[in-house]
């Protein structure tokens, strides 16, 4: 794990470097809260994608597919499709009407004080729950990366929290944007590499890959069952499975369009047109990423196996375990593990 540690420290050092650079350039409210509104379309697209493809959303989805097959892929579809709502209805009016937050838009039409108070309350509520999920994932990954060095889970979570505060307090929006851009690039590259490795494991015969996915052995107490992971119904079961799926879809289509940390990104660009183009960039990145996520999720189910995943860390570890398994079959293991894990670290 020494290579992993080195790459991890390199990532921390370079993000702190970005923060230092951003802190020196930051002058005034617009620079601090909106990166001086000079972020370009592709930069903001990568930053939005980086923000969205976080530890909780991405590791979790791969784990769901590795353990429950196709039903987990519904989360990938929802995560992508949510950006159609943002593109058609949200991004441009938001950029045209507001200055720093969604509260500006609502305050424009309603009595400002109570509206802003409620928006602040709603933002803090959403962010608190969101952050807890991120910190759990980040803590688990850092513990994994620093395994053997005696760093406990609690120390890892605290460390990640302090690091994130440094990025935000000193570097403002410019630093967080660039940290997310770097993260999105690393994450996309690693996902692509892992997806190629998964398909390579099946000698690039898609039929073999899907055949393996549709016959996955799973132990139930004494007996072994063969399950088809391409069939729906392993997660969402009757009587309420269908309603659960519809409710989930509703959450994606309407909920994602209200995530404060995504919305705030549309204030970092110079105008509505750039905001629009940046959503399209994000849709290209997030879409490709989530399509590939099915190769990773099903691959983890077929190659590592749900039994092994459940006894070695559970849902969130499916991706890292897949990287490790592919490494042991004669691939550069450490690079894959770190590549996969590192960028997830600063998910929020």
């Amino acid at each position, binding site marked *: 794990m020494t290579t992993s540690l080195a790459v991890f420290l390199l990532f921390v050092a370079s993000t702190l470097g970005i923060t230092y650079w951003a802190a020196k350039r930051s002058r005034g409210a617009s620079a601090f809260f909106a990166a001086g509104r000079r972020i370009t379309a592709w930069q903001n697209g990568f930053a939005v994608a980086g923000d969205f493809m976080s530890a909780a959303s991405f590791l979790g989805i791969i784990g769901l597919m590795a353990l429950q097959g196709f039903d987990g892929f519904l989360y990938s579809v929802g995560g992508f499709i949510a950006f159609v709502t943002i593109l058609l209805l949200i991004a441009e009016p938001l950029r045209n009407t507001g200055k720093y937050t969604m509260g500006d838009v609502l305050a424009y039409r309603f009595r400002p004080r109570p509206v802003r108070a409620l928006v602040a309350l709603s933002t803090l509520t959403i962010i608190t729950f969101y952050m807890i999920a991120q910190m759990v994932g980040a803590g688990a990954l850092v513990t994994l990366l620093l395994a053997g060095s005696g760093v406990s889970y609690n120390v890892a979570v605290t460390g990640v929290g302090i690091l994130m505060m440094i990025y935000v307090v000193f570097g403002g929006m410019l630093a967080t944007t660039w940290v997310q851009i770097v993260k999105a690039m690393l994450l996309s590259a690693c996902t692509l590499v892992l997806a190629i490795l998964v398909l390579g494991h099946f000698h690039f015969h898609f039929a073999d890959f899907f055949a393996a996915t549709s016959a996955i052995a799973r132990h139930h107490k004494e007996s072994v069952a063969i399950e088809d992971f391409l069939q729906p119904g392993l997660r*969402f079961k009757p009587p309420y499975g269908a309603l659960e799926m519809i409710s989930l879809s509703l959450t994606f289509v309407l909920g994602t369009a209200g995530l404060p940390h995504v919305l705030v990104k549309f204030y970092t660009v110079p105008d509505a047109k750039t905001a629009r183009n940046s959503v399209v960039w994000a849709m290209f990145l997030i*879409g490709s990423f989530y399509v590939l996520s099915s190769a990773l999720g099903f691959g983890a189910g077929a190659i590592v196996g749900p039994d092994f995943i459940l006894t070695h860390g559970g849902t969130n570890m499916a991706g890292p375990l897949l990287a490790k398994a592919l490494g042991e079959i004669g691939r550069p293991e450490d690079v894959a593990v770190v590549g996969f894990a590192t960028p997830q670290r600063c998910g929020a």
Partner: protein
Amino acid sequence: MNNSGHNLDSSEWSRIASSDQFRHLIAVKKVFIIPAFVFFIVYYFALPILVGYAPKLMGMRVIGTVTLAYLFSLSQFVVGWVIAWLYLKAAAKFDALTKDILTEVDPARGESE
């Protein structure tokens, strides 16, 4: 178009808002955005509804062991990208109309946009 409103006084605002050109812009936007959004919602919600209420149909193997459910899910990505592409083309028209309105209000600003 961005922030240009800061330099307009309220009489100019209401004059633009009631102008035929502005109404035309809003109408053109609605003609694209509303059908696109409705189509997208119907197509997307067909997925959970069919998977939930017609699991036999969606579990049908279409190519090898690949199920209809998985192919339908992948088609959601294609539909999303196509809507984005169509929207970019339509939005270029919105931008042109916006520019015309701004040029009329303030020739200098319209040119610079």
